[in-house]
């Protein structure tokens, strides 16, 4: 059964269940109980099937799911007293990048993330979550502010990539990304980055030079989109799924390759099925990472951050 069929069946089953349950509470008809039990079993079997049999193509669909929680959703669940801060102090306020200060579990943190839109209008305003140079410069401004005040930084990443456009090039998209990588490598405060959906190339890495990089189960992180890869290498973008397989862009592969430090489990069916559950898993991972990072002197942290990226690469010495 295809994933979308399972999803539909699950939804139908769920609504029948809800109806039955409300009837039961109305007239407490216990005869319905075994039926409900059976339906609940069916539902959980479907959920398991939906969850386990994920192909690379389906994973990409999940990573790009229109209802996938966004950075502002996670902030809503995880951060209190949030004050959103705007602008790069240079050119514009990029709505594809959001950030600010708030409290996480009782400590002040700076939170930054790429931001996809919730609907078409929102997506146009936010350039479908693809930042311009001013977005990366806003992010860096807030990260340097966090460094000044010794706040940990939490970055959420879900972007197809940096915005490809005229203005972006005129204002130095490449320079903006490069400068973030350069400055983040020595930021004197803990940095934790979480790839929540799409980790699209340099546009994602510009927020991911971090002490800890995590990925959600169904997120992807790649040097190029599978479509782009297929069309460049094989002149055929319909071979995107072959490319996805070949590029090894899923969390398990990237963990094995030492690119990321951990995987955050998604609720059954994907993050979009249960925002609160997803946020809870992220919260637990963030907590333990912050506790771990707080054991180190800043100098040690920076040494480890350098070593972490320094050692990546596979080669044979001549």
């Amino acid at each position, binding site marked *: 059964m295809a994933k979308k069929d399972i999803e539909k069946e699950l939804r139908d089953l769920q609504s029948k269940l809800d109806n039955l349950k409300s009837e039961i509470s109305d007239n407490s008809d216990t005869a319905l109980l075994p039926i409900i039990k059976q339906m609940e079993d069916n539902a959980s079997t479907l959920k398991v099937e939906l969850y386990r049999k994920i192909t690379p193509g389906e994973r990409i669909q999940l990573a790009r799911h229109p209802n996938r929680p966004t950075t502002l959703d996670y902030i809503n669940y995880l951060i209190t*007293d949030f*004050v*959103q*801060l*705007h*602008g*790069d*102090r*240079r*050119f*514009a*306020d*990029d709505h594809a990048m959001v950030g600010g*200060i*708030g*409290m996480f*579990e*009782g*400590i*002040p943190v700076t939170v930054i993330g790429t931001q996809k839109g919730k609907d078409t209008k929102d997506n146009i305003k936010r350039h479908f979550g693809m930042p311009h140079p*001013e977005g990366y410069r*806003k992010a860096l401004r807030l990260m340097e*502010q966090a460094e*000044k*005040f*010794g*706040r*940990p930084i939490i970055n959420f990443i879900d972007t197809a990539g940096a915005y490809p456009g005229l203005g972006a090039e005129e204002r130095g998209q490449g320079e903006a990304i490069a400068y973030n990588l350069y400055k983040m490598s020595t930021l004197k*405060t*803990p940095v934790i980055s979480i790839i929540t959906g799409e980790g699209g190339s340099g546009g994602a890495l510009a927020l991911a030079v971090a002490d800890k990089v995590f990925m959600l189960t169904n997120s992807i992180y790649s040097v190029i989109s599978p479509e782009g890869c297929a069309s460049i290498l094989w002149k055929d973008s319909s071979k995107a799924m072959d490319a996805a397989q070949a590029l090894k862009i899923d969390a398990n592969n990237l963990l094995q390759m030492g690119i990321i430090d951990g995987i955050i489990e998604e609720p059954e069916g994907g993050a979009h099925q249960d925002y609160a559950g997803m946020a809870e898993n992220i919260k637990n991972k963030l*907590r333990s990472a*912050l*506790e771990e*990072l*707080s054991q*180190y*002197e*800043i*100098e040690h*942290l920076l040494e480890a951050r350098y070593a972490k990226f320094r050692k990546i690469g596979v080669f044979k010495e001549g």
Partner: protein
Amino acid sequence: MANLFIKCPECGTTHFNKILSKTLFVCPECGFHHKLTSMVRLKYTIDKGSFSEFDRKMRSMDPLNFPGYDDKLKNVIKQTGSYSAVIAGEAKIKGEPVVVMVMDTRFIMASMGSVVGEKIAKGFEYATEKKLPVVVFCASGGARMQEGILSLMQMAKTSAAVKRHSDAGLLYISVLTHPTTGGVTASFAYLGDIILAEPKALIGFAGPRVIEQTINQKLPEGFQRAEFLLEHGMLDQIVPREFMRDTLANLLKMHRVSILRNNKKFRIEQYGLK
């Protein structure tokens, strides 16, 4: 605020002073945030009875013997009961200790001469020494022309004092109110760690009239207003007056812990991770 009626410069409607004092001097028609005297601004912002003022009587000299300046000063002191265009002191905002400075446009358009420069620099120095955050409510027509080059130099002097405060790891929140222009924007007003503004405030280096004459064309609607500047990346947030005190208190609270921070080591225990 002696007038019985106040006319809104934005929409032209006239309201009783008494009505406006109940809306924090925000126009009920169009939401325009009227100018406030520094004392009223303090009242809206800080904890009652928490203010201890610095250098209340510091006043301008007339170093260039500039025609008419001495009389102008005497008159404005008499009219406003203030000795300068800025009031500075130590206070608390919802219990958070802070050095707060407020500019007052009634005093020669809150232009910056030696006294404004001195009080601002001194306020930052005091805050640096006492490890306190600073909040400045900015408003200004620009440099005090009557003090010539001395006024220009106040930009360098205040900026240098802000830098020392920042290097000490301390927080500075700048609040831009209507209007903040000229040399004040080109110095301490735009040097905040966090820059807030009131809705529709006019903020800019060169005045709109000067720009129009120079480029010989009409300026677009909303040019140099807070909303325009937010879109152009120059402000962190626009905060309506009714939320200003809470916003400031929240930001101050979240930065308080950085003072406890051990410089070498990031330590969560000091924050108390829940």
